[in-house]
């Protein structure tokens, strides 16, 4: 039993760290440090840099561009990326549609899509939630009717993250209405430029455009874009649950935010004392650090244990990562906003985007704190709300 990294792992960590330091464009790093919103090209550029290095899709099989690192190195890579801080590669591409295509796609689909997914030549968005199907996802109604070589899709998706940037959507559609709802769902790849598909923005409480509504009005989708078998889509979507759990806790990102909060608190004065020297602040931060350390070790346990599990087998402990990880992302954004104090309430969106030409009213670092705080409330809602996670844990782990 050894908590510390082996010399080989340390060497790997240093290599990764050095690469992030030298390869990340300065303007992207600056945005990451300040917590500013990234433009589409920032994410695409960064993923292409990673892809050129062979690191865009570490968890994929080697024949499709994976690195064959194994769980510990993959974990180190993700932690270092968050600590750098560098942007995550596009999750919809790398962690969602990619692994599904690798597991269930046809050879033709793999050959066509996977290289473009890895290089972000195609930007995928996820068409899962609907107005009437949130936590109860299986009740989705967007219908795909077979018509010769095509499916005709009608219906509506909602909460579609970054659909405004997307080239493609992986979409759950209803292909059968009889039987259990789960048994009539198929997994389709849809070109978002197809006539009849309309995207409308939804502005969230941080004032930003993350989410969209997507409407389908007789959208013609070639039948060859069906992934796997018709009516098996639910199992393909579920395949990802409990699988790609590394990094879901975002421990590195929360850690980075606390480093920053502590640094910034040294320059904020409460009377004659820096905020960082007040007992109240120190104890509040220390309490969060303790939970974060516990989560980090829980995550390391999951990583270390995954070596002993068959590939792809979910570890029950991993479900804790999302629950606790999102709580701590929220707690750390809250602390950072409290450090910013009243300046956090000044709304200057150009500073949030990093496009401002005028100096900010308050210190620049305060301009992103509230937006981060507001938007991070979504982390315990998306990807299966934390309440749904608890239902899953109660059923699968506790067998209640």
């Amino acid at each position, binding site marked *: *039993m050894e908590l510390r990294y082996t010399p080989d792992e340390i060497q790997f960590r240093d290599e990764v760290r050095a690469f992030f330091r030298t390869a990340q464009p300065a303007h992207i790093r600056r945005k990451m440090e300040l917590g500013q919103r990234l433009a589409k090209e920032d994410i695409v550029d960064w993923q292409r840099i990673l892809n050129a290095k062979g690191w865009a899709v570490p968890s994929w099989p080697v024949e499709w561009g994976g690195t064959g690192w194994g769980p510990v190195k993959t974990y180190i890579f993700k932690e270092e990326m968050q600590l750098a801080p560098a942007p995550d590669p596009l999750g919809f591409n790398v962690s969602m549609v990619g692994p599904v295509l690798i597991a269930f796609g046809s050879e033709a689909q793999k050959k066509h899509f996977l290289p473009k997914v890895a290089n972000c030549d195609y930007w995928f968005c996820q068409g899962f939630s609907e107005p009437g199907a949130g936590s109860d996802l299986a009740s989705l109604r967007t219908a795909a009717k077979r018509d010769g070589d095509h499916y005709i899709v009608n219906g509506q998706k909602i909460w579609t993250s970054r659909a405004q940037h997307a080239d493609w959507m992986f979409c759950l559609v209803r292909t059968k209405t009889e039987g259990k709802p789960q048994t009539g769902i198929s997994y389709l790849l849809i070109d978002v430029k197809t006539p009849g598909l309309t995207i409308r923005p939804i502005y969230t409480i941080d004032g930003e455009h993350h989410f969209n509504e997507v409407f389908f009005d007789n959208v013609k989708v070639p039948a060859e874009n069906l992934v796997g078998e018709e009516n098996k889509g639910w199992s393909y979507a579920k395949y990802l649950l409990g699988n790609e759990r590394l990094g879901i806790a975002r421990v590195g990102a929360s850690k980075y935010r606390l480093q920053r909060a502590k640094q910034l608190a040294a320059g904020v004065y409460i009377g004659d004392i820096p905020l960082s020297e007040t007992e109240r602040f120190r104890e509040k931060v220390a309490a969060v650090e303790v939970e974060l*350390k516990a989560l980090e070790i829980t995550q390391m346990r999951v990583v270390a244990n995954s070596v002993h599990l068959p590939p792809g087998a979910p570890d029950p402990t991993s479900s804790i990562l999302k629950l606790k990880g999102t709580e701590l992302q929220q707690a750390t954004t809250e602390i950072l906003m409290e450090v910013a104090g009243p300046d956090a309430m000044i709304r200057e969106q150009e500073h949030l985007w990093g496009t401002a030409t005028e100096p900010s009213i308050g210190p620049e670092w305060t301009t992103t704190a509230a937006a981060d705080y507001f938007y991070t409330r979504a982390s315990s809602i998306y990807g299966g709300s934390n309440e749904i996670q608890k239902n899953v844990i109660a059923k699968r782990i*506790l067998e209640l």
Partner: protein
Amino acid sequence: MDFDFSDEQRMLKESVEQLITDRYTFEQRKQYMKEPAGYSRDMWERYAEMGLLGLPFDEKHGGVGGGAVETMIVMEAFGRGLTLEPYLATVVMAGGLINQGGSDAQKNALLPKIADGSLLMAYAHSEAQSRYDLADVATTAKRDADGWILDGEKSFVAHGNCADKLVVSARIAGERKSPEGIALFVVDTKAPGVSRKSYETQDGQRAAQIKLSGVKVSSNDAIGDPGKALSLIRTMADRTLAAVGAEAVGAMGAAHEVTIEYLRTRKQFGVAIGSFQVLQHRAVDILVALEQARSMALYATMMANDPDPAERSKAISAATIQIRRSGKFVGQQVVQLHGGIGMTLEYKIGHYFKRLTAMESLLGDTDHHLAALARAGGLIAAGA
């Protein structure tokens, strides 16, 4: 990075867990509690046979040369059984001080007897006024012709009721709270001037208040360099906290299992109460608290022997904060989920709660460790 046990550690875990399963049912425990010293003499001998009483000591002192991981394994199993024996007091605390700081003569004389089960010891440190400040020692040791004379009163001496010998802290110089001037002495409980008032604790264990009135000890009874004992005490305290953390995780784990079983079998409104979502979510909250505590018990174990005392103490405080918060939550909630039966002395669930509660004030409570960690700058350095 590796969380696997070695083959020997796995065997140790299996054998201790088996022993606790076979010999420490709730009913058996009730019988042990009625024995004269409040624990099972028979179990103590079994621990000796299995090598548990010499676990951290060198082979040349009758031990097996185990480390913090082995102690964690044993303490977690003991936590599951809510064991009553003076293991922590004898082996981890008093034995730990002798093992770390004692002379060869002391080690040769005392450790083999601890290991074979013939010597019980306790650590007499806290005083009525000291609360959790390890440097707050008012008991005095004054130079005598051929040794020292001890005067003072020690509180909360865990298993002081049955100890044959004590390790006692006393001040040879300096103000009451000064980190300098503290010494440790081995004191026989039968020595003239030692008197004790034994009592039961809320969790069914035993302890004593110990009074030292002109107790004579020889120079050879001092552990390490008299006046310089505080760092030794801090090291032992941190290792003890790691051990107690593992015990707490054992108790929480067992309490959690008992509670899940109850949720599956207890029926109300015609169904198992575990089918109610509000209770399912609470059970998940308990699981999360348990797993977070388990992670920190591992962290404490792996940091317990860190060469940098400042890093070690921060890690131990952090682990203690998490484990105690988890322990309080789990203890309270397992009682709540059991309803009325959780309140009865006759049923085991309340006893986990009582033990977890008793552990909270050992070597500093949550607030004490949170303040210490915050003062030390926390776990994450400011940056970026």
